[in-house]
Structures are given as structure tokens and as C-alpha cells.
């Protein structure tokens, strides 16, 4: 017995060590990848820093400051070191530390993405499940059409059309940005997510204004997520409904809703979690485009602006942040997975 306990502990430790090792290698790979991308850029980082006027001496000084005269691996070590110190360098567009910029723009994207994934999940998962249960009926076809359209529509275009119709044409939605001008700056912090902050500060007018602004982009992003999620939950559900244990549940006398929600749904929860995670990461993609369309001052707009002006520090910072978030979310879903699914405990 005693022996067993030790073995168990060892095993748990081993599992922990391996999963930490996996994450670390993935993170390391992330750094290598961004470093390589950074080196591939044709733009001269020295010039980017020096700006319009420069002379050779200043050039050489900055060249050395940046460590560009060092061998590649030393440069990489520097890169890693800097990142570990949360130093992503300075953006030469905004002239701020990239970290500060990211801290400023990220909450806006997070707010958008969270709302969108909530919309996508709340609508998409039930839709997928219902269409699996009612396979072949009109609702199934509807779900299929919704899903396919969501998979096929260029979101930046849809956004543009929404603005054309609902802003320019009907005037139902605001033309862009996070908030009406007069409400801007009334609440600041602590989360940077305006809706939340406004709620915390009980500034209801700000709250409504922020909600009004976020609705269209969040719905669009949420639609893309919903398309994906409904498709996935439909196929997961179909797979479960063909399982033997469903027959058992029916033989017990359970009604269809109990079978679906109590038995089958429990079995797809974990898979759903994984695809919601994936959808969330996919949302960041959509956010890059939709933020440009809706003038949403978030990570996506920051990234595209940085791309336009070859502001590589900012680009890499943003890309690294997105990669990091994806890894963290995946990790989180992994942990929850282990927690929720008895088979992996």
C-alpha cells in the first residue's frame, strides 16, 4: 500500500514534469519562430530606430546597442532574455514600450473576443446539438446553412457591408470605435474592458454606449465562432448518439431531453471545451480583420498598423502575445479536461 502511494506520487510527478516540459518546448519554439520571423524582415531595425536623419556613427552605435554584431545564437539569447524581462523593445510607430502598448490594446480585444465567444457558444452549441438530435429536419438544414455560410464569408467584407447597411443606411449602429466621444475617458481601468469597468463604476451611460459599440463586431465574430461550434457540436453529438450507452439510457426509460443533455452532452463537454478553445484562438484571427473594419482600438488594429509601418518590435510582440494566449488557453482547457473527464483523472 505504502509502496503504491509512492508510485502514484512518482507517476503524478512524472506527468507534471512532462507536461511542463511540453509547454516549455512549445514556448521555446514560439520564441524561435518569432525570432526567425524578426530576422527575415527586410527592414533595417537600426534605421527604424534612428528615424529620418542619421549619420554613420549613430548608425554603428545603435547597431551595436542592438547587438546585431553578435553571432546569431547570442542575439537569440538576448532576445529571450529581453522577453523574459517583458522587454519587447520600443514600437517605432507609437514610440511606446511595446509591452505598454500591448497592455493598453489587449483588453479591448479580450473584451470583444470574450463577448464573441460567449455569443458563439451560447448560440452555436445548442444549435449543433439540436440539429444532431433532429437530424435531417429543417433545423438541421438551417444549422448546416448557417455553419457553411459562416465558414465561407470573408469577415472583413461582411463587416464592411454591415457598416454600409446598418450604419450608413439605417443608422442603427455606431460607425466604429469603442465608445461615444462624450463618454470617452469617464471610466478608466481596472480591467481595461470598458463594459466591465463601466459596470464596476456604475456608469450606466458609459456602459450602454460601450455595449452599443461592441455589439456589431462581437456579433460578427460570434457568428464565425457559432458557425464552427455548431458544426463541431453537431458531429460530436451524432457520434455520441450512436453509442451503445445511449441505447442503455433509452432502455432505462429516459426521455429524449435527459438522454441528450444528461448523458450525451456530458460526454461531449470535454471535446466542446477543446473546440471552444480553438474557436477562441480562431477569433483572434477574425479580430485582426474586424478591428480594422470597425476601428476597434485593439490588438488586431495594433498589429495591422504595425505591419503597415514595418514596426517589427510591435508585430513580434503582438504575435508572441497571441501565441502565448493560445498556448495558455490550450493549457487551461487541458487542465479542465483532466479535471472534468473521469477517464483522464
Amino acid at each position, binding site marked *: 500500500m505504502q509502496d503504491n502511494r509512492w508510485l502514484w506520487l512518482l507517476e503524478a510527478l512524472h506527468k507534471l514534469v512532462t507536461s511542463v516540459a511540453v509547454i516549455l518546448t512549445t514556448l521555446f519554439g514560439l520564441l524561435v519562430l518569432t525570432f526567425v520571423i524578426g530576422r527575415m524582415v*527586410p*527592414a*533595417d531595425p537600426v*534605421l*527604424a530606430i534612428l*528615424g*529620418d*536623419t*542619421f*549619420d*554613420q556613427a*549613430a548608425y554603428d552605435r545603435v547597431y551595436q546597442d542592438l547587438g546585431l554584431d553578435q553571432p546569431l545564437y547570442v542575439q537569440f539569447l538576448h532576445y529571450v532574455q529581453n522577453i523574459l524581462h517583458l522587454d519587447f523593445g520600443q514600437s*517605432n*510607430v*507609437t*514610440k*511606446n514600450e511595446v509591452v505598454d*502598448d500591448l497592455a*493598453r*490594446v489587449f483588453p479591448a480585444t479580450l473584451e470583444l473576443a470574450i463577448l464573441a465567444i460567449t455569443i458563439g457558444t451560447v448560440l452555436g452549441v445548442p444549435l449543433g446539438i439540436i440539429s444532431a438530435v433532429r437530424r435531417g429536419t429543417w433545423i438541421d438544414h438551417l444549422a448546416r446553412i448557417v455553419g457553411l455560410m459562416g465558414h465561407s464569408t470573408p469577415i472583413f467584407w461582411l463587416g464592411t457591408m454591415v*457598416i454600409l447597411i446598418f*450604419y*450608413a443606411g439605417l*443608422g442603427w449602429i455606431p*460607425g*466604429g*470605435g*469603442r465608445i461615444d*466621444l*462624450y463618454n*470617452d*475617458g469617464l471610466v478608466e481601468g481596472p480591467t481595461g474592458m470598458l463594459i466591465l469597468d463601466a459596470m464596476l463604476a456604475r456608469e450606466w451611460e458609459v456602459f450602454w454606449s460601450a455595449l452599443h459599440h461592441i455589439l456589431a463586431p462581437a456579433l460578427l465574430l460570434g457568428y464565425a465562432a457559432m458557425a464552427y461550434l455548431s458544426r463541431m457540436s453537431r458531429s460530436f453529438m451524432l457520434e455520441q448518439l450512436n453509442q451503445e450507452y445511449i441505447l442503455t439510457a433509452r432502455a432505462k426509460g429516459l426521455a429524449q431531453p435527459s438522454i441528450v443533455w444528461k448523458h450525451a452532452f456530458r460526454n461531449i463537454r470535454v471535446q466542446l471545451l477543446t473546440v471552444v478553445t480553438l474557436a477562441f484562438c480562431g477569433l483572434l484571427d477574425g479580430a485582426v480583420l474586424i478591428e480594422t473594419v470597425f*476601428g476597434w*482600438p485593439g490588438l488586431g*488594429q*495594433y498589429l495591422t*498598423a504595425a505591419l*503597415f*509601418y*514595418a514596426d517589427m518590435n510591435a508585430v513580434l510582440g503582438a504575435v508572441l502575445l497571441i501565441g502565448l494566449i493560445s498556448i495558455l488557453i490550450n493549457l487551461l482547457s487541458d487542465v479542465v479536461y483532466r479535471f472534468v473527464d473521469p477517464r483522464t483523472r
Partner: protein
Amino acid sequence: ATPQDQLVIATNMTTMRGVDPHEANQIESIEILANLYDRLVYFEPDNLAEPKPQLATSWEVAEDGKTFTFKIREGVTFHSGNPLTAKDVEWSLHRLVKLGLSPAIDLRQWGFNDQNVETLIRMTDQQTVVIETPEVWNKNLILASLASSGCSIVDRELALSKEQDNDMGRNFMQASDAGSGPFSLRSFRPNDVLMVDANKDYWNGAPAMRRVIMRHMPESSVQRLQLEAGDVDVATRLSSTDLAGFESNGTVNIQKVPGYGFYYIALNQKDDILSRPQVREAFRYLIDYEGLASTVMRYYGVMRQTIIPTGLPGVLDSAPYKLDVEKAKALLAEAGLPDGFTKTCYLPSGTPYFEFAQSLQANAAKAGIKLDLQVGDYLGKFRERSTDIYFARSGERLPDPHSILQSYASNSDNSDGAPLSGLLAWRSAWDVPQDMQQKVFAAARETDSTRRAEIYSSLNEEYLTCSPALVTSFERIDVKAVGKRVSGYTGHPTWVTRWDTVTKA
């Protein structure tokens, strides 16, 4: 609609790089700096010939033509509450030169440098500053430089209190205000919004606008819709079609602000093909001046094939070139290139560059020249002299032909390592004809205005006939659409537009 005591300006903030007057030199930054800070003198947008006092109440130029003595206004305080003295003036101008960033050209071009600035610019007492130029220059050039955003006077005490690693407060001033102007910075979120509040204690009286908001709105259509809806007061980045829409329905006022610059095509003279005079000339026949003028360039430029813009001495209205593909072909054949060639053309993104370049590309193709367009930020590459062809526009800090000519038609050292990277001629590796260069500097030193105008006029003609490496086609204008409720908002040709004159109905 916007409140009556607030002005909302829609703009594109993407290129805005901070609000340090000694560092920033983009059009949007400069408009903000013009309002956060004061300078010694200023020029009204409609009278660029006569400097007006701002922080300097009076000034005089000594006999030698080199020594300028400024009396500093009394009782002015910075937004921080610190009093503004000659010490601040002295330190600010030193800072500009010592930091040596883009705006430093305002003083450096007259011969100021790290070594001499401390002795040449000095306070003599609390209210007096003496500026001694290293050489004799036309005094209007010096005063015009002092009126540009680079020579803004900053709050020395505040800047030094925020100093890190001897940066003269550079880090702090990236995103903070240390000025004495009519407005003070309230908040600044890059690529989102910038807000300034009225400085109630401004020496010239509190401005009518309680607050001014600059909003990042890169989409022309969005700017247009917001302006129509009255949600913004001024739109600065409208496309030609949107402006045409406004112009035809007359719902807003359209200001065409002349900019002292040109749309230019820089042909790299290090390139064997592009350095042939016939090839350079051929490009002048490949621009569809008329087509562009009536469509794409309608609100972005005024056709001009020389290098002195409207309103400056020496301006020349002659425009001998027209789109003529056959002529271009003949020139190419003459240059030994009957089958044309392929080159890459680099250009910034956005309107009107993209449309202009595509038009050029199509015409060039007809003449056998294949142009690959590369859209993006290639200024660095241009500065390294490694672009084949670079298409962009220039703008100038000085309302004077000199700065333009210096850039377009002077290049005293065409070697790769020469410290002339600010000059367009150097960037295109163009060995400007010696007599032209000499004329440029002679004109700058000339103190007599009529004589200066004559020199400029002859330079202009020479430029037209020498098949230059920098092909000019349109003189830059910046268009601002201003809501009918707004009055007193006047775009400034050197971008230092002030908001303290604005009132709203």
C-alpha cells in the same frame, strides 16, 4: 452631434509617433504640438511673409545679419505652473539640436550643431535670448524655422525632473505634454484617441473650445459619415470621391491647404538604366497629368512640374509635359532601350499613392516599362539609396523655397556615406548640376527679396529642362473638410494649425 464647446477632429493617427516636439514630424503630431506648445514667433496661415510675435514680444537682427535678440514675454506659465523664462527657451533650442532627431533640421540646416549650439544660442537675462547663426542667412528663413514645431519651447524644469539616463526627458515627453500652449494634453491612446483640454490661463486668453478631441478614423467613408452626422467637426483624411460628394452637396466647407511639397518620383541614379537622361525624361511623359488631376489628385494636388509651389517666390506656371506614350517610347529607343525594362517601384500605402502609381504603371507598361509596385513603408530603403524607383510626396517645415530646393536640388556630396540622408537628391543619388546647387545656396544667403525671387525663378526653369532624377508632377495640398458649425479653423501650410481661434455655432 458634438457639444458646442468641443472640437472633434477625425484623422489617421497611424503614423503619429509621440508628441515630443523635438522628435515628432508627422502632420498630425505637428498640429497637436502647435497647440500644446508655443514658439518664439509664428506666421498666420494667410500671411507667410510677416512673422508675428508669440513668446517673443519683439526681436531685432544685428548689423552682421547673424545675431538675433529676442525679448521673451513676461508672465507666461507652463501647464505645470512653472514660469516660462529665457532659460527654457535656451534649453529647448539646445535640446532640439542635441537630440538630433528629424526636427533638428530646423536649426541644424543653418549650421548649428552639438558643439556650437551652447555658445551660439544663449540667454543673456531672464527675458532675453540671443541666437547667433553660424553664417549669414536670409533672416526670414531663420524666423520661419523658429516658427516651426521643432522650435517649440518646452518646460525645462518638468522635463529635467522626469529625466532618465540623460535623455533630456525624451522618454517622458513621448506621450506627455510639457508646454505652455493654449491646450494641455489630457489623454493620448495611440491609434485611438487624443484629447486636449483648454488652458484657461493662456496668456492670450482662454480658448473657446473647452476640449479638442482627435480621433483615429483611418477609413475615409467612416470619416465622411461621421462628419455628415455631425459626430465630428473636422475630417482630415477623406478620399477624393468622398470630398467630391461633400463639395457637390455643399454641406461642409472644404479647405484646400497648400502644402510646401510635391508628389515626386525618385529615380535611383545608381542604376544604369534610370540614370540615362532620356529615361528620366521619358517618365515625365508617362504621367497622365490631366486624368489624375480631374480624378485621383483632384483633392490631393495641383498639377505642377517645377519645384516651387504656389504662393512662394519664383513660382512658374509653365507645364510643358503631357501624357505621351509615343514620345516616351521614342526617348527610350534613343536611350538604347527600345524594348523597355523592368523596375520595382516602391510607394507608401493608401490614397492617392496607390491609384497614382497604378496609373503610372499602366502607362509605363504601354511604353514597355514594367513596374512592379511594392506598397508599404520603404522610407528606410529609400534612405539607404536602394530603391529603384520611389514614389511619395514631400512636405516642408519652412514656408520658403529654400527648404524645398535644398532637398530637391542640392547634393554636395553624392557618396554613400555622406551625411546628407535628409535630402531627396542625395537619396536618389542624383549628382545635381553644380551651378544649380550654387544657385540654391546663393538664394538662401540673398537678403534682398526680389533678387531671391529672380534666382528661384531661374532655378525653376533650369529644373524643368535638366531631366531631373526627381520627377515632380503635383504640388501637394492637404484637404480638410470642416463642418459648417465651425469657424476659425484654418489649415496651416506648415501644419501648425491652431485651435485657439476656433469657435462653434
